[in-house]
């Protein structure tokens, strides 16, 4: 760095001298270039002031002592700025390291929580889940039973950030530990509630909607733990209705029992499951209305389920200026005709 300063010192002095003589724009442009080179070489503000002082002393050996003293005064006031500058530099580097560590964690989360969309006869499934930041606080999971049935969980951690996102892997592994319960939404939630209550920090809550579908009966059985209600599209009446369910979020009290509901579905019907990142999408400062969401879904209803959810996501991504405020998970089931 010392060498760099010496080279720049010569240029600096020449430019300064030239400018004092000519007052031309070219020297000022040169000053700008030198300044950028200083920044690049991480030369501190106090060093630059010192360069100036030295250059002036060489150019004007007879300079008035008072002015000289005033420049030393200026130098003194720059020292702390130099320190602060170094500190910011360091904090910025630390921030970059942190960011890359988080992205490693996010990738790991993706691997841990990965789930494959199963092929179920007569059912077209589409799902999209996009985190607002690096780590996803939403979660969905498919469990395919040996009897050809399908269990679907969709969940949202209340209390954002990395710890919240991490506790989702616990949920996933708990779900996989109780395969016999995947056929009973009520039992599944009752069990998960115990796991969350025992193991998760009191500041973190998890909402979950769990549903089980048996193709031979064409019926959805479901239960909800305080999760954002989904919607049922009735092809016959060509209308949506909210899927009603009651149940407290996971992890509040250890002995919660959940209620189970049934919903028969017919060819052409759709079931829309989502997280609040979808229903609370915002257009500027305004929250979107439910009708708006359902209109958009309906608009793409003729597409295969996967394309549908992608189009709906694109619509709201654009509406929110490509900056999601909350994790966005949308899952659509279409009963094929």
């Amino acid at each position, binding site marked *: 760095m*010392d060498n760099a300063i010496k080279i720049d010192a010569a240029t600096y002095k020449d430019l300064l001298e030239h400018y004092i003589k000519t007052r031309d724009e070219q020297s000022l442009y040169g000053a700008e270039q030198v300044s950028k080179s200083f920044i690049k070489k991480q030369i501190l503000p*106090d*060093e630059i002031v*010192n360069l100036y*002082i030295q250059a002036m002393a060489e150019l004007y050996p007879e300079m008035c002592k008072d002015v000289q003293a005033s420049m*030393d005064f200026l*130098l*003194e006031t720059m*020292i*702390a700025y130099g*320190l*602060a500058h*170094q*500190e910011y530099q*360091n*904090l910025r580097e*630390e921030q970059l390291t942190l960011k890359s560590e988080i992205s490693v964690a996010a990738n790991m989360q993706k691997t841990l929580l990965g789930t494959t969309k199963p092929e179920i006869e007569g059912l077209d499934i589409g799902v999209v889940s996009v985190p607002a930041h690096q780590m996803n606080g939403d979660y969905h999971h498919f469990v395919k039973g040996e009897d050809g049935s399908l269990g679907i969980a969709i969940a949202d951690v209340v209390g954002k950030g990395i710890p919240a996102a991490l506790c989702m892997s616990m949920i996933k592994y708990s779900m996989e530990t109780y395969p016999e319960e995947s056929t009973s939404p009520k039992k599944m939630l009752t069990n998960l509630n115990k796991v969350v209550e025992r193991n998760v920090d009191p500041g973190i809550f998890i909402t979950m909607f769990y549903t089980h579908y048996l193709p031979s009966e064409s019926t959805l059985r479901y239960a909800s733990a305080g999760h954002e209600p989904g919607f049922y599209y009735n092809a016959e009446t060509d209308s949506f209705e909210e899927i009603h369910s009651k149940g407290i979020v996971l992890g509040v009290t250890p002995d919660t029992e959940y209620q189970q509901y049934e919903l028969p579905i017919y060819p052409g019907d759709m079931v829309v499951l989502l997280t609040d990142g979808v229903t609370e999408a915002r257009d500027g400062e305004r929250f979107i209305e439910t009708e708006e969401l359902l209109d958009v879904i309906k608009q793409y209803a003729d597409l295969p389920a996967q394309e549908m959810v992608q189009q709906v996501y694109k619509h709201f991504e654009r509406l929110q200026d490509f900056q999601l405020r909350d994790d966005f998970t949308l899952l659509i089931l279409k009963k094929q005709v």
Partner: protein
Amino acid sequence: MEPQSFVEIKEEWDIVGARQMGRNIAKEAGFGTVDQARIATAISELARNIYLYAGSGTISYEILEKMGRKGLIITATDSGPGIPDLSLVMEDGYTTSGGLGAGLPGVKRLSDEFDLRSEEGKGTTVQCIKWVR
């Protein structure tokens, strides 16, 4: 080696005295203007830490000549409460977040060599060396 000089820190006013002595010694030793200002700033931080957290202590100066190089050793000693978590005070943004100053990481940046020892309930010693460029 020249005889050691030191300043006792008891009141805020003593910080100025410590700066003054440090700057004079640095100037005599042949430090440039920027380094004199940096040395003075480091001394300020050390002296202020003594004044604020230990109540009293000393700042001492020693000229060092080693392998044809000349340096200034500044040592701040106090018998105050000590620092329980050294890593924490050496973290950027920890002491400066309240706008108190450059803190110990700042002193470290201002020096070429830096050492910190602290014993809870016994006191703290900070030593830094600056070499003449």
